[in-house]
């Protein structure tokens, strides 16, 4: 069954979109990431114009993170205070990101910047996480304890910087300087790559701040909810590229998929959880690397200006 998308201006198979968004929603619910970093490239692969894909995925991510936020809120595993600090930093980073995005577009190198960032970011983060997950898995097998939580009285130097703040829910007492810096970086990357940034935020909060994973996921979803809601409205106002019909299809698949993902997450042990996320991120990074290193069969590509569609 095909349906015509009014803004993307092409017909698309309803079942295909539902299946894809369901699968990505499952991953999103499982890992507490937005899933935009998977869904956007998939939609572009289906010939949906990149601007429409980015903007519509933002709406979908807002919807599915809403479900997650409500669930974690009821379970009281959502740190609103930490979330607020992350949102404030994220907004600042988004502004820098948009400025950088526009200057790169003027220079005509935007596509290269995006591909290179995807490759470096995804392979680095994925590789590091894979290494770490494998190492701790080996430790578990050797019978030694996994040191995920902080040992009382010790903390990395960045948490001891000035302006320390207490985050009860996250069991964290740390300087807000590294937290805001992290949020700014993620807002920046998110604006440039058109992704929510959950896939960076979640591991960063776990590894650098040793916040309990359950709280990290809820808080990360909260940050994604706020930024993606803003991003959807901004995309709609600035380039009219939000496709309502596509958004509804993605939402239906996404929210249902996220439910099952969220349930699966509770039956999954931490080690396997990290290993899977690492492999997933690494796979996306390698996918982009292949595009960069393999000689293209067709060196020419045609760009339809978005306003022309």
């Amino acid at each position, binding site marked *: 069954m*095909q349906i*015509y998308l009014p*803004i993307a201006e092409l017909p698309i198979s309803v079942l295909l979109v539902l299946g894809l968004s369901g699968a990505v929603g499952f991953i999103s619910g499982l890992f507490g990431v937005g899933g935009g970093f998977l869904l956007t490239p998939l939609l572009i692969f289906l010939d949906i114009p990149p601007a429409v894909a980015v903007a519509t995925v933002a709406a979908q991510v*807002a919807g599915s993170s809403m479900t997650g936020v409500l669930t974690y809120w009821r379970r009281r595993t959502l740190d609103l205070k930490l979330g607020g600090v992350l949102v404030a930093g994220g907004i600042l980073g988004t502004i820098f990101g948009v400025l950088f995005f526009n200057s790169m577009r003027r220079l005509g190198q935007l596509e290269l910047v995006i591909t290179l960032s995807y490759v470096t970011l995804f392979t680095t983060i994925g590789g590091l996480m894979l290494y770490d997950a494998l190492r701790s898995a080996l430790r578990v097998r050797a019978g030694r304890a996994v040191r995920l939580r902080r040992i009382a009285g010790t903390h990395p130097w960045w948490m001891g910087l000035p302006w320390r703040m207490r985050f009860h829910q996250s069991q964290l007492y740390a300087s807000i300087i590294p937290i805001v810096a992290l949020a700014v970086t993620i807002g920046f990357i998110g604006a440039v790559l058109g992704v929510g940034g959950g896939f960076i935020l979640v591991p960063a909060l776990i590894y650098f701040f040793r916040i309990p994973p359950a709280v990290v996921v809820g808080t990360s979803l909260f940050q994604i909810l706020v930024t993606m*809601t803003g991003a959807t409205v901004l995309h709609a106002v600035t380039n009219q590229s939000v496709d309502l019909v596509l958004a509804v299809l993605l939402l239906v698949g996404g929210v249902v998929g996220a439910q099952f993902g969220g349930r699966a997450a509770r039956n999954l042990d931490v080690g396997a959880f990290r290993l899977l996320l690492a492999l997933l991120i690494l796979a996306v990074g390698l996918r982009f690397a292949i595009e960069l290193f393999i000689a293209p069969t067709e060196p020419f590509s045609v760009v339809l*200006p978005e306003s022309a569609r």
Partner: protein
Amino acid sequence: MSRVVRLFFTCAALFALPAEAETLIVSVSSHQIQISSNYTGDQITVFGVVERDGRTVARADPYDLVITVRGPPRMLIVREKERLGPIWINRTQRRFPDNPVYLTVSSNRPLDEILGAEAARRERIGLANAQRLENSGLDLDASTTRFHNGLIRNLSEKGLYAEEERGVTFLSPTLFSAPIEVPATAPTGPYEVEIALYAGGVALARESTSFEVVKTGIEQRLASGAHDSPLLYGLATVALALFFGWLASVVFRRD
């Protein structure tokens, strides 16, 4: 205007007539393609008749017909990937202003059998010639042709450009019809249909008509809503998204 001058023009017109002895009468099966929510592309039939009057000389060669359909013009950017160290990146790009996004050239037999390459260029027949490249200004040089060929390959791959060597059927020596495929990805806007008649490589007549592709119903309302009141559209989308999210958390709630 003096009588002498008027007489001169009348005579000139009379003498000019035999050269345009054939006339084309053409039409399209529909002047409007409507995009509704189950739209998956459409087909338009161009049909017509070659009309000869009493003065028409008998032709030694049979008629040939070339039908060119041009979609709405857009600014297209073509990029070329080049090797830089170990990686492949887009290094150069060319702009093609006012280039049709959709283009089909249908004929009753291969174009090179109908007319010569030089004539095809002059008369804008064929995918490579249908769009004149002179208006791109300083961009025009030898490599422009390479980029233009890349553009044609890319859009042909997407089904937006096509050359149909047997696309025109003569039902009788003078009656013809040609189906024109309009894929679902073809842009909305006016489409210009140009029909050129040849015999033995000589252009005999040219006629044009048009049709348009428009969105209707809910498709049209959503598209115009997105453009006319973007803030409202954006807020509505967000509200809908958050509602779906809330609904899911209620439906799937287990505690």
